[in-house]
């Protein structure tokens, strides 16, 4: 517990890669936000300038037009004083003075005006406008006198000689300034943009470089860990499986030879525990293969009934001992055979059925197979394993098939739900085979674990058909030589047979007493009981109907003359010299199984 807490604290203090990346992104976003704000501010300032430019220019032109028009009118009055009524010109000039004052006021109020001092020569311009207005005022006040006309003449002359050129210069200078500022704004915007991009690039590199280093280091570490794990698993597979098989085999041997009931109980516990360890090893090896994609799915024609029998046969005794009825039902519309991987399907179904038996205290476990249609009307096979066990609560069903859910990997209450690492494996297998897997369960009523598989069929010939022909055919293989027994078991299983290996003649007889077999292979030289004696005893038992009748075939490495006759005399039907290869086994099966119309166990 203390260690766990220490590990937890350490994990909390260590910044994770995710947290580091989050921080990096936050800094990047902040930097881009600041730069973006500068750009927006810059653009806003340019927009204000544009707006002011048109207002100021409009004012300048208005004042210029007013002065030009009024100056013309005043000149007319000066030249034709006698015919031009003075009241008329006074009224016009009063209005003109007001307009000039108003526009000047606008001009002066313009916020941009203050900034354009150098271009507009603001002070001089204002002085000139004020003088002009003053002269007009003086004329209006003293219009009847000759002094009044002098003021008007000065206003006209001054406006034409200084004020109007000054206003034109101002408009021109202001426009030049506008163009210059526009270019400067465009340049500054471009510089901001490039600057922002470079800054973004620098920050990104500064952030991503260490991140990429961390990722590269993490990846290297992961690859190394996977290599170590692969070696470890490969070693574990070989180094654990063999001694455990030896434990099982020797315990079985001792179990047969001992009559002590207490010992029987303990021995069975040893065998059951060893089975659990073997299954766990299989799960781990399968998990590794799936993780690394190093497993393949076969597509061979398989017989569904044989598959179910293959699953039920080793579990029947356990179910019987618990008082649980084990039954299966293949509905009429279901195909008799499909294309698939028999080994994988057996693995999936065995997992579900053994779990169902394990967690059902009374009642039954039923395997139901039916044909269903997929979304696009394609045919699927639905296999259901229905039990009358305790059922699984809704909250425990979640994540039941997940690989990496904490509940699945570290659940201490596995016994409560019947789940385990195996369910994740079998679901992955089903998915790889093109199907799906699920669960319907209600606490107190039981569970229905189901899976679907594509119900593809073909008229395959050759090896597939052979495997189907001999699928589930039960044979005894008596062979004391470990390598030869493993070899022959593999060959016969490859042809679809269900092989019951025996290490000597006595073990073969014991097997024959338990089940019906279609064929019995006997090695001639074996310890405990050799092949000749075994054949004699088997024949006697067959004649007395103590065991089912079956052909006996000798497989021997002895090539002495007269050995064949010795075998036949002992009651054997056929005789083959080792080594016997796949084709030989196929030929023997065709000869003795087909001829006897497939007597299956």
């Amino acid at each position, binding site marked *: 517990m203390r260690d766990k807490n220490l590990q937890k604290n350490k994990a909390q203090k260590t910044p994770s890669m995710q947290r580091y990346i989050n921080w990096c992104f936050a800094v990047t976003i902040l930097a881009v936000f600041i730069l973006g704000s500068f750009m927006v501010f810059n653009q806003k300032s340019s927009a204000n300038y544009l707006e002011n430019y048109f207002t100021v220019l409009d004012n300048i032109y208005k004042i210029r037009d007013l002065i030009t028009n009024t100056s013309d009118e005043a000149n007319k009055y000066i030249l034709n004083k006698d015919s031009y009524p003075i009241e008329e010109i006074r009224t016009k000039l009063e209005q003109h003075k007001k307009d000039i004052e108003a526009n000047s006021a606008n001009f002066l109020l313009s916020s941009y005006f203050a900034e354009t001092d150098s271009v507009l020569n603001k002070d001089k311009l204002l002085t000139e406008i004020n003088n002009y207005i003053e002269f007009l005022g003086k004329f209006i006040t003293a219009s009847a006198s000759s002094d009044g006309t002098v003021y008007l003449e000065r206003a006209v002359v001054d406006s034409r000689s200084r004020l109007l050129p000054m206003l034109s210069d101002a408009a021109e200078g202001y426009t030049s300034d506008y163009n210059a500022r526009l270019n400067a704004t465009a340049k500054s915007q471009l510089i901001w943009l490039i600057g922002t991009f470079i800054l973004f690039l620098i920050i990104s590199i500064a952030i991503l470089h260490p991140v990429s280093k961390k990722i590269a280091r993490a990846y290297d570490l992961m690859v190394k860990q996977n290599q170590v794990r692969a070696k470890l698993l490969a070693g574990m597979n070989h180094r654990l*499986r063999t001694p455990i098989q030896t434990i099982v085999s020797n315990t079985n041997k001792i179990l047969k030879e001992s009559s002590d009931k207490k010992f029987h109980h303990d021995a069975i516990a040893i065998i059951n525990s060893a089975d659990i360890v073997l299954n766990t090893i299989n799960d781990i090896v399968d998990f590794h293969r799936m993780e690394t994609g190093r497993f393949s799915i076969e597509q061979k024609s398989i017989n569904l009934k044989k598959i179910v029998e293959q699953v039920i046969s080793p579990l029947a005794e356990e179910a019987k001992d618990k008082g649980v009825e084990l039954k299966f039902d293949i509905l009429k519309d279901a195909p008799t055979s499909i294309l698939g991987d028999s080994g994988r399907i057996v693995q999936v179904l065995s997992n579900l059925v053994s779990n169902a038996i394990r967690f059902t205290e009374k009642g039954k476990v039923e395997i139901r197979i039916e044909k269903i249609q997929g979304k696009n009307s394609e045919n699927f096979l639905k296999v259901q394993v229905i039990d009358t066990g305790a059922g699984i609560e809704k909250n425990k069903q979640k994540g039941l098939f997940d690989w990496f859910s904490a509940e699945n990997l570290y659940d201490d209450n596995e016994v409560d739900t019947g789940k385990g690492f195996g369910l994740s494996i079998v679901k992955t297998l089903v998915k790889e085979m093109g199907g799906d897997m699920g669960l319907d369960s209600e606490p107190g009523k039981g569970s229905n674990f189901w899976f679907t598989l594509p119900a593809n069929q073909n008229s395959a010939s050759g090896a597939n058909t052979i495997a189907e022909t001999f699928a589930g055919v039960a044979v005894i293989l008596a062979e004391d030589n470990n*390598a030869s027994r493993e070899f022959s078991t593999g*060959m016969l299983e490859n042809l679809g047979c269900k092989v019951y290996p025996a290490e000597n003649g006595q073990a073969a007889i014991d097997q024959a007493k338990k089940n019906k077999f279609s064929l019995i292979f006997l090695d001639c030289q074996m310890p405990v009981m050799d092949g000749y004696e075994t054949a004699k005893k088997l024949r006697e038992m067959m004649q007395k109907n103590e065991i089912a009748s079956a052909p006996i075939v000798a497989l021997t490495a002895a090539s002495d003359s007269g050995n064949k006759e010795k075998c036949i005399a002992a009651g054997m039907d056929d005789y083959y010299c080792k080594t016997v290869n796949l084709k030989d086994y196929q030929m023997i099966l065709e000869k003795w199984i087909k001829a006897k119309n497939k007597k299956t166990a």
Partner: protein
Amino acid sequence: MTPELSNLSSFPAMDSATVEQTRQILPDRFSLIVQFYLKDTEQAINEINTAVTTKNIKAVNANAHKIKSSANQVGALKVGEAAKLLEHKAKATEAENPDDNYLSQIRNYADALSSAFAESAVLYKKFL
């Protein structure tokens, strides 16, 4: 050295065709088969050596027979042939009452078998 033992060199320590065919048919089992072959053959050779020392020719014969079977099965043809020669020699009439000369010949055959196995073991261990 007898002509029979001299002829052993014409047999391959590992028949690649047999190995490849078996690996193809039994990809998951081949490693275990080789493991059994190496372990059981080594044990049988030890028993043969003990049997030669104790003049137990029957045990020599039984163990040679055992080796012959599994060696040929995995394609270790030189070992299979050496085991066959030893088995035949151990079945000879001299086995009833072995003299020193006969025991010396048996020892030669057993040594040839040991050498053949050592040669094949190097090649097969890579499948473990």
